[in-house]
C-alpha cells in the first residue's frame, strides 16, 4: 500500500476536525468560479497554472453543512456553469452574467439571510504565502480589512 501524503498532510494540519469547511471565490482562466474544500492550501495549489498562483479572491469558513448549503445554491443549475481544466471545479459561464462584486454580494446576502456563522477569513489567499491553517481556523476579516 502506498503512503498517502495528501491524507497525512491533511490530518497533520487539521487533526480530526472535519467540521470546518471553506468556500472560496476565485477568478482565473477568464472565468469567475467557486468551490468548497476542507483544505484551502491544497485546493489552491490545484489551480496553479504553469507556476502562476491563482488566488482565492475571497475565502469563507463555516461548518460543513453551512458550506455545503452555500455551494449548493450556485450548483442547483440556476446559473449556467462550465467545467475547465478539471471536473468538479465550478466556473460561471458567460451567460450567467455575474461579476465578482455581484457574486460576493449574493454570497453575503445568503449568509446573512440564514444567520449563518459562515465568516470571511481571507482575501487574496495564495497557498504560497499561506497565512497558516491554524490562523485560518480562527481568522475573521471585516470588509475594510
Amino acid at each position: 500500500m502506498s503512503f498517502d501524503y495528501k491524507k497525512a498532510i491533511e490530518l497533520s494540519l487539521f487533526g480530526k476536525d472535519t467540521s470546518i469547511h471553506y468556500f472560496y471565490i476565485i477568478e482565473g482562466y477568464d472565468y469567475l468560479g467557486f468551490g468548497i474544500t476542507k483544505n484551502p492550501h491544497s485546493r489552491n495549489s490545484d489551480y496553479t497554472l504553469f507556476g502562476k498562483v491563482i488566488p482565492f479572491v475571497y475565502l469563507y469558513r463555516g461548518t460543513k453543512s453551512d458550506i455545503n448549503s452555500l455551494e449548493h445554491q450556485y450548483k442547483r443549475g440556476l446559473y449556467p456553469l462550465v467545467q475547465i481544466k478539471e471536473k468538479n471545479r465550478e466556473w460561471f459561464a458567460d451567460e450567467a452574467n455575474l461579476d465578482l462584486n455581484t457574486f460576493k454580494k449574493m454570497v453575503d446576502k445568503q449568509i446573512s439571510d440564514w444567520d449563518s456563522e459562515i465568516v470571511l477569513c481571507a482575501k487574496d489567499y495564495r497557498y504560497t504565502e499561506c497565512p497558516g491553517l491554524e490562523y485560518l481556523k480562527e481568522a475573521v476579516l471585516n470588509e475594510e480589512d
Partner: protein
Amino acid sequence: MEALQLKIDTTFPFKWKEIPAAFATNPYIQYYELDKYIATFRSMEDNFKTACQDSEVKTALKKLVDSGIKVYPHEMNRAITIRLGDYVIPDDLQRILDCPHLAGILNNFNSSCLDILRGIVHSKMGPSSSDAQHTATLIALLVHVGIFVDENGNKYDNWQDYEYQMWGRKSDSFAECRIQFQTSNGDGKKPQTAYMKIKNQVKTVRIDGDTSNKKYVEIEKKLSMAESYGCYPLSDKFAKTDFSNCFSHINGFAKSPIEAIELACKYQSTYFYNDELNSVVWSFWRQIQSQFSLYDIQITDKLMYELASLVQRVFKTNFAFKEAVDAAFKEWNAARGVVTDKKREEAAYGPALIQMYKACGGTEQVPRSMMQEYVSTDVINGITYSLIKEIDEAKKYYVV
C-alpha cells in the same frame, strides 16, 4: 405567516427564520406543461432534417452505408395474419405465463392498448412467439368469453380460429426470435423517463378526460395536491435546474402516498420556498407519515414548524441535512465495525430527523419505533451506537 403564529415551545432551541422569497412567482411556471395541452405537432420532415443534421447520426449512417448492407422487401418484418390456435410459445426463450400479470392487464383492460403479437413464421412450427404471449392469451380469453365479438355482435365459435396480426417474417432461425424478444423487452430502446411516464399518465386524465386507469387517476390526484402547494415536477429538459419548490426526483413523488405528499409540499412551500424540493423531503415525510399513522399519532403544525426550524438553523437546507445524514450513516457503520459499500440509506432520513428533534428537546409526541431505528447496542461492552451521535452539526444541541 401561519407558521409564526404558532405557540413557540421555549424548550426547543430553534426558531425558523422567515427569509424573503427570491421570486414573487416561480419562474418555472412559464415552462410548466402538465396542466396544458401542447397543440403543436412535428412532421416527419422536421424529424428527418434534425436527424440528417446530427453529426453522430451522420457518422453512424455512413458506417452502415460503407458496410454495403442491403435489405430487400421480402426480408422486412411485416404484419402477418395468423390463426391464434397456431401460435406457439418456445419455452427455450419465453418466460412462463405470468397469471398475476395477466390478471393485472384484465383489471385495467383497455382495448386500445392491445399490442400486436411478435414472432417468426417457422417452416415446421408455424407462427412462433418472440414476445406478447400474454397479449395472445388475453385475446384468447376475451374471444372465449364473448367480449370480442364479430361485426354483427355474435360470439365467435372458438378462440383457436380467431385471426390476429403478428409482426415478423418467415424464418427458420430462432436466433431472430431471441433478438426480437430482447428488443421488444427494452434492449436497445430508449427507456421512458419517470417524468415522461407521469406526463402521459396525467395528461390521459387531464387532457383526454380518460379516467379508466386507476393508477393514472391516482397520480393525477397526487400531482394536483403538489400543485395546490405550488410544487411542480421538473420536466426532463429542466431536470438539472433546481427551481424553487420544484422536484426532479419523480419516483420519490410517485411512490409517496397522497397524505405524505401533502405534508412534504406544505413543509416545502411554507418553510423552504427558496430551495428546490429535495428528494430527501419526500423520503422523510413518507417515513414520518407512515409511522405516525401506524401509531395513530397526529402530525401537528407545531411539529412541522419545529422540524423545519431544526433543519434550517442547523443545516440551512434540506440538501445539507441529507448530506449530513449520509456522512453520519458511514461513520455509524464504521463505529460499529460494519463493513458495507452502502454510502447512504434512504430509510435513515426520517428516523434521524425525528431522533434529532427529540434529542434537541422537542416535546411533540413521536412514535417509539422511530426512536429505535439506527440505534444499536454492543451488549458485551455496553456501548450504544446511535446514528445521530455522528451528526457533528447537530450534536452540540442535544440535551437528551
